[in-house]
């Protein structure tokens, strides 16, 4: 399952991850986010390092990374933002990006 990312575990789980880590910024009221969720879960099942940050609960995190639309997907590599996708993004596209890193 995709990890639940919070302000508290962000550094440990995401920034210190030894492989590229995908964070899905989402919220319960957002239609496209509800479609993105299952895609992210599938990536988790296939062994990719992924997590979900609920912007309603983790507003500070969303603000820190300048997230202004949801869903926004950010891939972190070596503690830094490496790629950002705004809007519903297909599994194939996300896999391509993660595989190339």
């Amino acid at each position, binding site marked *: 399952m995709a990890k639940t990312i919070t302000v508290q575990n962000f550094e440990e789980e995401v920034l210190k991850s030894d492989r590229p880590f995908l964070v899905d910024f989402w919220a319960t*009221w957002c*239609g496209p*986010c509800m*479609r*993105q969720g299952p895609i992210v879960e599938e990536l988790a099942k296939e062994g990719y390092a992924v997590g979900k940050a609920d912007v309603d609960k983790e507003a500070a995190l969303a603000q820190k990374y300048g*997230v202004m639309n949801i869903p*926004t997907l950010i891939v972190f590599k070596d503690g830094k933002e490496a790629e950002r996708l705004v*809007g*519903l993004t297909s599994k194939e596209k996300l896999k391509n990006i993660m595989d190339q890193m």
Partner: protein
Amino acid sequence: MEKIIIVGAGPAGISAALYAARGNMDPLVVDNGIGALEKAEKIENYYGLECLLSGRELYERGLAQARRLGVRILNAQVLGIGGFDTFEVKTTKGSFEAESVILATGGKRSTPSIPGIRELEGRGVSYCAVCDAFFYRGKEVAVLGHSDFALHEAEELVNLASGVTIYTDGMEPEFSREHPIAVNTMKIQAIEGEGRVEGIRLQSDMMMQEEGQEQASFMPTDGVFVALGTAGSSEIARQMGAELTEKGHIKVDEKMESTIPGLFAAGDCTGGLLQVAKAVYEGCQAGISAIQYVRRRGKES
């Protein structure tokens, strides 16, 4: 609850309605007027048309044919579609719940591309007020558009943002009702900002220029919500979370089903040939697929 709602009354929408009606689905068609067909003066290449028809004549014949089969036609604009298990279709004439929806509003009406919109997508430019209003709590936002679609988006924002202004980009406002939201009808030169939206540059007013005043006025804003024209199939589908193709058309499979179960699309909005024949085929397929979807759903519950 409706079984099937069809958005659009052109060749794709009406073909879907004919099949849905014959399948006892009693479909409701939401008609927002003629689309691209209006541009066709004479249609010569469609099967069986011995006497040439204009696009408008064909459209009107289609409506009459559907009515003869008992199809209900509602003259309204769709503002957006919500819901998860079933669909809530919001229109200018009220909301309707449906088990299945077929989008067939035609292709994109050409809307002028305003410099800065693409560049600042995800950096203050948004296409979904319901999704992103949250990020503009206590901030100043702009909605681009001139119809009820823009008004609907603006109303999603008023309770959260400190201020909401609709910019029509030189278009005459076409709101179907009174509202308290500020409207600016000047032409837009660009959306500006370094790395994120900072404001809207309006085109200079000739009169003001002659008087030697400032060339163009700059309206500071934190966010820009795009709702140009009327809500087309792609805009509706995008807000619902259906996948679009790279070209911005609705992604469908061979059954004309989008990536959302129960949501189908047909005609120009799926890309490919902009031909009546193609729209009719896709409408037929979408209608049949929607019937199957509704029947399957009935058996499961």
